[in-house]
Structures are given as structure tokens and as C-alpha cells.
């Protein structure tokens, strides 16, 4: 789960990281009031959970409260990469003398958190990573021991930070690690961490991504989920514990397991079809969950055929069959359906489905072939 910039910075602030004074506005009028309170110049920043805000014109420097209102009016009317802007952050403007990058994330290969810093922070940091990897320095963090002061010093020296900023930098790096750890983040990033005109370090922009699996112990953070920004259908999927990604094809797929779901999509494509979605019902889904999943698929108007590929392990084929049958009783649909059920309780599952009007398949290839045929020309490449 991603946190908005303003939420991330508020969290950073709790851990002693200096951030600009600022507040969030839902309306242009509010933005004007905040600008007046803070004193201009201020920056109006679109709060959306996608990158590229700056290039899309979602960040504006303004010099009067009236300009703030005008800029906020524009930004609040924007869509950035398809997402409507519903909030702006009004931050006091800072004079920037240089931009640092500082971030902590998980390195799965090393199986540890890694803290990274660069003297060349800012929007082009990924370009720096590609072209001058030596300009990004890393220090791996023992997950049991935690981040140590000497590691922060190592980074400060390696990015050739002026000595009078070391104390601040060490506090910021340690604070960032604590923010990351205490909120079960998978990413906590300050970019840019600026040196201001009056020679202070300031976290001008912040980003955090939290581990969805750990939200059960962070109810305060879980409440911050911005449901506005999720497509209604994905929100619904989450509510049932389903993993759903909408795609552009015509073959609705319901599969148990992410790997098998991907493989199923691969095979559908191999036989010339286009999947309408990725949908993993997870392990051990009961009839309710299966029913919810099927209803999600049926809501997509592009879907021409539904394909079930269930290989039972912790998931039981009979439960899946019950879920399908229950849905077909409730929902009126003419769509053809291809079902392939193998594994745990497969006999019972097949017996249950025998009553319904479903095409059955024995192998994955068989199922994909039949589904592609049924989708007809609608499933063109």
C-alpha cells in the first residue's frame, strides 16, 4: 500500500526528520487560506499515487495566496496518468542549493534492508542509477541488529556530504530506518533531501510503501489507504482477499495461485487469445470467495468467455464448484465457460459441475484452446 507524499512526510516528521511546514487542501479556497497562513512563496503539489507529477504540471510554485488558489484550482482539476487529483499539499517553498537522494528498501537477493544515498538526488535518480551506478552508494542492514550510526556516517562520507551536515544527516538516516521498520514498510524514500539556501537539510518529498501483509498490526496506517484512487473493481477484489488486475482481453480467467495464473495467461496467449484479467483466488478459497471472483469477472463487459483453471491443493475443487454453481444461480449470464478442475477433491468438484452447462477440459492447453475458440474473433491479437 502506497502512502501519499503528505502522509509519508508526516510519518517521517514523527521520527525527527525535518520537513517543510505545510498542510493538505481539498479545495482551492483551503489552499489559499493555507498559503496565507504559511506565508508565500508556497508550492502546490498534487497528491496522487503515481509518478510523473512534476512533468504533468502537478507541482506549482506560487508567490501570493491568490496565485495559490488559482494553481490549486487547476491542479485539483487534473488527471495525472489517469488518476484524478483530489488533494493538494501546500508546502512552504524552500530555496534549494543541492538535492540528495536517501532511501531504504528490501533487497531480496541479500535478504536484508538496504539504505541507499546519492549526492545526485531529484527526479533523475533512476537515470543516475543506470548511467552512473557508482554515484549511488549502499549499505546493507542486518535485519536483527538494525541500522547503525556508522552506516549513516559511511553514506555521508561516500556522497561527500559537507561535514557540517553530518549530524543532521545521521539523524535523518536513523529516523528514516525507524520509520521504515516501525511501519513495516517495503520502501521509505526521501527524494530530494535538499540542502536549503540557509544550509539546513530538509525532506522536500517523501514516499512510503507499506507491506500489505503487515497492515494487520498497523491499523492507524491501514486507515490511510486511499480508496478514491483504486478502481472500484480492485477495491472489491481486495475486500474478498482476491488478487485481481484488469487487462484488455476477452478471456476472463479464474485461477488459484499466482504462478499458475501467470502460466494460464501465458498459455492463453500462446493459443492466440487475450486474457481479460489476472485473477488469483489464493490458497484455500471457499465457495464465497469463488463466487465473488466470478462476479468480478462477469462485471467486465469485454469478457466473452470465462475460463476456470483450478489445481486443488489447499484449495478444494468441490468448494470451487459450489462457488461457481451458487453464482450461476444468482447471476443471469449467457457467457460460455470452460472449467478445468484437478487436484484435491476433484471428483466431487466435477460431479457438482456436471449438472451445470459448462465446457470441461482435461489439460491446461485443452482449456485454453477451447476458451480461445469460444471467444471467437473477439479474442484477436
Amino acid at each position, binding site marked *: 500500500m502506497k502512502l501519499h507524499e503528505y502522509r509519508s512526510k508526516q510519518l517521517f516528521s514523527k521520527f525527527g526528520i525535518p520537513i517543510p511546514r505545510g498542510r493538505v487542501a481539498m479545495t482551492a479556497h483551503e489552499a489559499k487560506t493555507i498559503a496565507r497562513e504559511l506565508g508565500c512563496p508556497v508550492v502546490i503539489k498534487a497528491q496522487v499515487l503515481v509518478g510523473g507529477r512534476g512533468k504533468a504540471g502537478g507541482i506549482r510554485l506560487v508567490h501570493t495566496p491568490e496565485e495559490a488558489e488559482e494553481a490549486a484550482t487547476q491542479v485539483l482539476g487534473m488527471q495525472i496518468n489517469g488518476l484524478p487529483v483530489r488533494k493538494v499539499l501546500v508546502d512552504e517553498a524552500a530555496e534549494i542549493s543541492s538535492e540528495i537522494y536517501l532511501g531504504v528498501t528490501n533487497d531480496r537477493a541479500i535478504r536484508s534492508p538496504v539504505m541507499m544515498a546519492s549526492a545526485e538526488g531529484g527526479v533523475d535518480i533512476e537515470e543516475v542509477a543506470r548511467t552512473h551506478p557508482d554515484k549511488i552508494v549502499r549499505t546493507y542492514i542486518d*535485519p536483527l541488529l538494525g541500522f547503525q550510526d556508522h552506516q549513516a556516517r559511511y553514506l555521508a562520507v561516500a556522497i561527500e556530504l559537507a561535514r557540517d551536515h553530518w549530524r543532521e544527516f545521521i539523524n535523518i538516516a536513523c529516523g528514516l530506518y525507524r520509520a521504515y*521498520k516501525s511501519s513495516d514498510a517495503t520502501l521509505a524514500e526521501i527524494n530530494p533531501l535538499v540542502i536549503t539556501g540557509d544550509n539546513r537539510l530538509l525532506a522536500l518529498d517523501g514516499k512510503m510503501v507499506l507491506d500489505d501483509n*503487515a497492515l494487520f498490526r498497523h491499523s492507524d496506517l491501514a486507515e490511510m489507504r486511499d480508496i478514491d484512487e483504486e478502481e472500484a473493481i480492485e477495491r472489491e477484489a481486495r475486500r474478498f482477499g482476491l488478487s485481481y488486475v484488469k487487462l484488455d482481453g476477452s478471456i476472463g480467467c479464474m485461477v488459484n*495461485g499466482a*504462478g499458475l495464473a501467470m*502460466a494460464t*495467461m501465458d498459455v492463453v496467449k500462446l493459443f492466440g487469445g487475450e486474457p481479460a484479467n*489476472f485473477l488469483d483466488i489464493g490458497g484455500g478459497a471457499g465457495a464465497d470467495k469463488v463466487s465473488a471472483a466470478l462476479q468480478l469477472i462477469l462485471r467486465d463487459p469485454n469478457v466473452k468467455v470465462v475460463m476456470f483453471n483450478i489445481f486443488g491443493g489447499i484449495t*478444494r475443487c468441490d468448494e470451487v464448484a459450489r462457488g461457481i454453481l451458487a453464482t450461476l444461480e444468482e447471476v443471469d449470464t449467457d457467457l460460455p465457460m470452460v472449467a478445468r478442475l484437478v*487436484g484435491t477433491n476433484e471428483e466431487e468438484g466435477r460431479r457438482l459441475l456436471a449438472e451445470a452447462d459448462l465446457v470441461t477440459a482435461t489439460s491446461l492447453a485443452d482449456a485454453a484452446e477451447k476458451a480461445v475458440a469460444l471467444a471467437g474473433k473477439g479474442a484477436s491479437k
Partner: protein
Amino acid sequence: MSILIDKNTRLIVQGITGREGIFHTSRMLAYGTQVVAGVTPGKGGEWVLDGKVPVFDTVHRAVEITGANASVIFVPASFAPDAILEASDANVPLIVCITEGIPIQDMMRVRRFLDQDGVRLVGPNSPGLLTPGGCKVGIIPGHITEPGNVGIVSRSGTLTYEVLYALKMEGIGVSTCVGIGGDPINGTSFTDILGMFEADPHTEKVVIIGEIGGRDEEIAAEYISERMTKQVVAFIAGRTAPPGKRMGHAGAIVEGGTGLAVDKINSLEAVGAAVAEHPEKIPDLLK
């Protein structure tokens, strides 16, 4: 004829009285696995499955009384790290964690701790292990495979069943099938298992089932090139997956351009491992 588990495996089931625990215990027993005990705190002293399996309050007690040498974990994600550590503390040499959805920072700490401890963890988010005709630990359906000489190692769950089933349809048997789990941090890697298969006299060929994300398949390719004499065949899921959601700059910097199916396929093919274009084609490649 197998790695890690066989007829002598004496298994305990942590979380045996839960819905999944009890269901899969009955399946494991039916397969012939020696399930010697279950563990559910607060239910010690009970017996489950018509008096077949005694339940203990702690892994310590279960191991002490039954001499168990492996454990399989079915407890919910929020309790699973503690369950793994409990099994480790009781010196259970093989711990198989089926649970999915464990927070990644928990797993980093657990894995770091186990590194010092010398126990082997398979998983989490693993379907378990299966030595056909010998022992089933976890949730891999037993009837979809037969004994044979092909070793299977997979990051996926159900996709593994798909492959086992496809092999069976073509009359190809399996020495041991190991699901290492799909989580970013897990206890056992492809290379750990490749090494065991290379050393196992009853395994003649090996199938790797990978998927997008991480660099485990690339590391496995290096290992194959340097250490493996046996034939290796692979399938990588996610060729057509849309690019995943980005993890901010740090994720991009750490992962770089890695994790794509095409890179994994190229790495494996470059070291002589044939990569199937869909899972049901694996049997052809083994012939």
C-alpha cells in the same frame, strides 16, 4: 530415492486443529506419511482424526515425546514466524511452512536467525514437499504424481501440480518435488535444492519451475553451469504478465532491470537448460 523427506520422516503438524491443518493432516496420513503429532497451544492432550494423532501444546513437548524430525506449519500468518522459531528452538531439522502472507520484515529477521541456527526452512508460502510413494509433507495432492527419477523444484504452488500432473500423464515419475515458496524471502533457494538433487543417486533429471521477480532463476543458472552434471529443464511463468506495479525509485534501483521472464529464460537457455513454452510441454523436453 529422494531428498529431504522419505519413509523415515517423523512429522509434526503445527496448527493441526485448524481447518487446513486437520484436512491436510488426514491427506498426509492417507498418503502414508508418519504424522506423529500435532501442536496447537491450549489443545495439548487431545487426539485428532479418530485418535490417530496426539496434540501437544508446544513443539518442544511434541518432539520430546514422539522423536519428530520434521514439522509442517499451517498456522495463520501473524503467528507463523513464532511457529517457525518455536520449531527451530526445539531443534527440528526440517521446517516446512505452508502459510502465506507473512510480513516480509518478519521473514527477514526469521531467516537471519535461522542462518545461524543450522535448521532448514522450506517456505513460507510453500506447497510443501512430496516424495512419491514415500512421504508427503504439505498440500501437494498425492495422486497426481508417481515415483520416478525426476527431481522438481518450484517457486510456485499450483503451477507445480500442473507440471507433476503433466509428467504423470506422460508416464514420468518423480524422486522428490520441493516447493520452495513464492515469497521474496524464503528459507531454501533453487540452488540449495539443485545441490541436493545433484547429490541424490536416484534423481537423474531436474525440473525448475520459476516465475518473474527476483534473481533466483539467474542464480540457479549460474549454479547449473558451474555444478550440475544432470539434465535440467525449466518453465518460467509470467512471460506475458504486464509490468508489475513499481516500488518507487529504490525498488527500481535495487532490482535494476531484473526479474523479467525473458532474462530468466535467456539465462537458463544459455547454460543448456531447455525452457518449455508452456508447462505441459515439459515432459517432451525430458524425453
